[in-house]
């Protein structure tokens, strides 16, 4: 493969990626690029394959087909821990706090084993800084289990950030939050980008996504049906059609514009 | 060659009983994800039950009639055990149910040893023998195999044709969904646990008709049940029966090639290897 100047600027390249579960093609021949420093939004109806695409990118699943290139390295089929080592972190749609550990320990674990591997002492410094950043600082000595949903989402975010990633995958970090919490979280996302971290974000909360994304791609039944700026996406008839099956979502989409 | 046939036939007959015992273990696992480490002592209780009701020092009933009583007691015992030791830890980590069922194991062995000591018992009982061509089969073993098949058939009819059986399968599939459909899941779980221990007790009772035993004897069959269950796929009753036959056949045939003391080595190595390469069992799909 020839490395052009264009490709130097691309942090994540997904080429022709498919993932099959038995008879179900959850992700089907998806191709797109994520340029460095950008926020790329990913939308699509429930069950469209968004989370599965994340899982294939970070190595939870091996792609049935296709190639994933991250920072110039082919990572298709790598294990999640190796992918993290290269500087790619993620949050989970269904939060996965380490319940019996404190918030601080959760975030420290992220720092210890992340892209830069740190000693406990260094990890604590990073963890404190990151918790300050996402607003969990006061709760650092509580058990993760005792947090509420919004705080658990922040914890996911803090843990991922503590690994000092180049690229952050955010899976519905706004879902289930109230408007104030959403506004705060959007602030955090934008601040992360300011630090030079590229972001790939799945979101159903449309107006928020419209505001933060540089570009948006749309999945439906595993296929990439549209790609463009937020304004282009809102006006794309294919996207509106895809959401018609789900009136609530369609409404959200409309009110977002 | 004839010797080989005879050992194979003998092994297969006992294999049916092994399969029955393993089915008890796998039924419980399939329904509630619990590995019953009290399985062995319950098999031993089945042996002592038949000994008590049919032995010359006990009531002196016909052993097969005694087996019916043992089955009922086994069912009741399991349901009580479910409420005492299992129900509360069903949603706890795996270790909890492993240990709580093992605590019942310790109680049975402890009390059993105190009551019966560990000296071997023998049910003096014979049904003569059956000559099939060159092969001579003990009547009690043929009978045991037949009963094992019969019990399996009844179990299947129960699980697939009756209301409570269907309810149990619904609970096994998805406890919450079953509960929403109005199935009393706790009762069904208790019932399936009871059925599992009942199968273990029956298997023990059948074994008592042809082998001597003591209170610790169940342990061997418990370990065999693990091997079988893994052969057939955890949670799969048909697999358990077939696994039982495979194990029985192996135990029949292997000693004609190498010292009999190597049989358990092969069994346990096979067990671990299958767990590693095909944790869903030899027959398991998925």
């Amino acid at each position: 493969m020839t490395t052009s100047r264009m490709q130097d600027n691309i942090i994540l390249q997904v080429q022709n990626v498919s993932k099959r579960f038995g008879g179900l093609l959850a992700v089907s021949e998806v191709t797109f690029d994520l340029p460095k420093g950008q926020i790329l939004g990913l939308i699509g109806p429930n069950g469209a394959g968004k989370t599965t695409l994340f899982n294939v990118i970070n190595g939870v699943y091996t792609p049935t087909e296709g190639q994933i290139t991250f920072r110039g390295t082919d990572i298709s089929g790598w294990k999640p821990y190796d992918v993290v080592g290269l500087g790619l972190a993620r949050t989970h749609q269904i939060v996965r706090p380490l319940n019996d550990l404190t918030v601080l320990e959760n975030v420290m674990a992220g720092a210890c084993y992340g892209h830069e591997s740190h000693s406990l002492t260094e990890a604590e410094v990073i963890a404190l800084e990151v918790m300050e950043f996402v607003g969990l600082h006061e709760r650092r000595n509580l058990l993760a289990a005792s947090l509420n949903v919004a705080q658990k989402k922040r914890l996911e975010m803090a843990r991922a950030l503590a690994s000092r990633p180049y690229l952050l995958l955010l899976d519905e970090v706004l879902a289930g939050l109230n408007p104030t919490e959403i506004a705060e979280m959007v602030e955090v996302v934008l601040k992360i980008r300011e630090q030079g971290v590229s972001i790939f974000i799945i979101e159903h909360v449309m107006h928020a996504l419209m505001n933060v994304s540089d570009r948006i791609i749309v999945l439906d039944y595993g296929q990439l049906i549209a790609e463009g700026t937020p304004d282009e996406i809102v006006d794309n008839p294919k996207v509106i059609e895809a959401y018609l099956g789900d009136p609530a979502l369609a409404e959200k989409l409309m009110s977002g514009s | 060659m004839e010797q080989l046939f005879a050992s194979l036939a003998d092994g297969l007959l006992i294999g049916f009983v092994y399969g029955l015992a393993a089915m008890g273990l796998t039924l419980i696992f399939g329904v509630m994800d619990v590995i019953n480490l009290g399985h062995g002592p319950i098999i031993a209780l089945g042996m002592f039950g038949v000994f008590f009701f049919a032995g010359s020092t006990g009531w002196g009933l016909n052993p097969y009639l005694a087996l019916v009583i043992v089955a009922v007691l086994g069912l009741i015992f399991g349901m009580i055990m479910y409420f005492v030791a299992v129900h509360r830890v069903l949603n706890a980590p795996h270790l909890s149910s492993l240990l709580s069922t093992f605590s019942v194991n310790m109680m049975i062995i402890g009390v059993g040893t105190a009551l019966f000591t560990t000296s071997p018992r023998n049910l003096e009982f014979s049904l003569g023998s059956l000559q099939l061509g060159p092969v001579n089969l003990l009547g009690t073993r043929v009978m045991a195999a037949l009963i094992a098949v019969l019990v399996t058939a009844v179990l299947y009819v129960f699980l697939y044709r009756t209301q409570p059986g269907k309810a149990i399968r619904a609970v096994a599939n998805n406890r919450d969904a079953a509960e929403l459909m109005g199935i009393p899941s706790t009762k069904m779980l208790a019932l399936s646990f009871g059925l599992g221990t009942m199968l273990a007790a029956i298997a023990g009772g059948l074994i008592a008709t042809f082998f001597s035993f003591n209170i610790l004897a169940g342990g061997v069959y418990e370990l065999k049940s693990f091997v079988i269950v893994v052969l057939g796929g955890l949670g799969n009753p048909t697999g358990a029966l077939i696994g039982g036959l495979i194990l029985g056949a192996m135990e029949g045939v292997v000693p004609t090639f190498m010292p009999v003391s190597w049989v358990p080595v092969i069994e346990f190595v096979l067990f671990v290897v299958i767990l590693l390469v095909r944790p869903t069992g030899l027959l398991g799909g998925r």
Partner: protein
Amino acid sequence: MKSWKYPALWLTVGVVLAGGLIPVITGSKIMRESMFLILMAVTMASSLNILLGYAGYVSFGHIVFFGLGGYVGFYLIAEQGWNLIPAALAGGLASGVLALLLGIALLRLRGAYFALATIGINEAMRTFINNFNLFGGPIGMELNFIVYQDYGGAANMQWLTYWLMFGVTIIAVLMSYGVKFSRFGLGLMSIREDEDAAMAMGIHTPKVKTMAYILSAILPGIIGVIFFFRNSSVQPAGAFRLHRSIEMIVMVMLGGQGTVQGPLVGAALYEALRSYLLTSPLFKDLQLAIAGVLLLLIILFVPSGVIGWLRHRFKGLWRVLE
């Protein structure tokens, strides 16, 4: 990790030192024998705790490392004329290597499947040793008493092995503490809480788990050698008793899994209870049944064990109880 965490360490080591020195100070042989068993139990339980309590993997056949290590060391002493100390180290090494090989293979399994596999390994090993003529098959091996001459006679040997056990126990407790408050320990506990999340956080789970398995196997291997050397004989049934594995788990649960002091407290309580039951005429025969009732009560009502319960109940004690 932080200075305020040290009181727990000093307390733990202090208790082991004090307990271990009682027989030395009093010179009582009876006390020495029971303390030997307690120290052994503490080492076994603390080792198991690294896998069970920190990493959350239930090993039902952990006694296999005690048995195999014991066998290897005993063979080297009895048949090859090795000295106890290098033989004990060799026993630990053998167990560590076994754990490495098993870890690579078995630790892919999770939950009940792993627990079952460890039972299978224990039984496979026991039945194999039963057939393994080099190690004496079903009869096992015996030590000629003359060997004890090299250690200043049988009486002296018993004090020597006591001191060795004492030393190993202190190592076990330090290791238990060191692992818990290390980067490695944090990785283990992340795996215990959510293995998939741990992987997504960058923890190389196969490597970390295998390391934990090895660490939890070495000391049991070493004390296996000390134990069987002291006993002057070894047999398959005694070396691989599945029951002993479960007793180890009970000790860890009783004291509090995942804590440093839990296995210490659990092992001491369990051994004390057992020796009381064994010597009381009323309970002698029911010893096992009573232990079973106790186990059930712990699981149902105090699943976090003594230390876990105390920590939960008295938050002020967090600094001293770990």
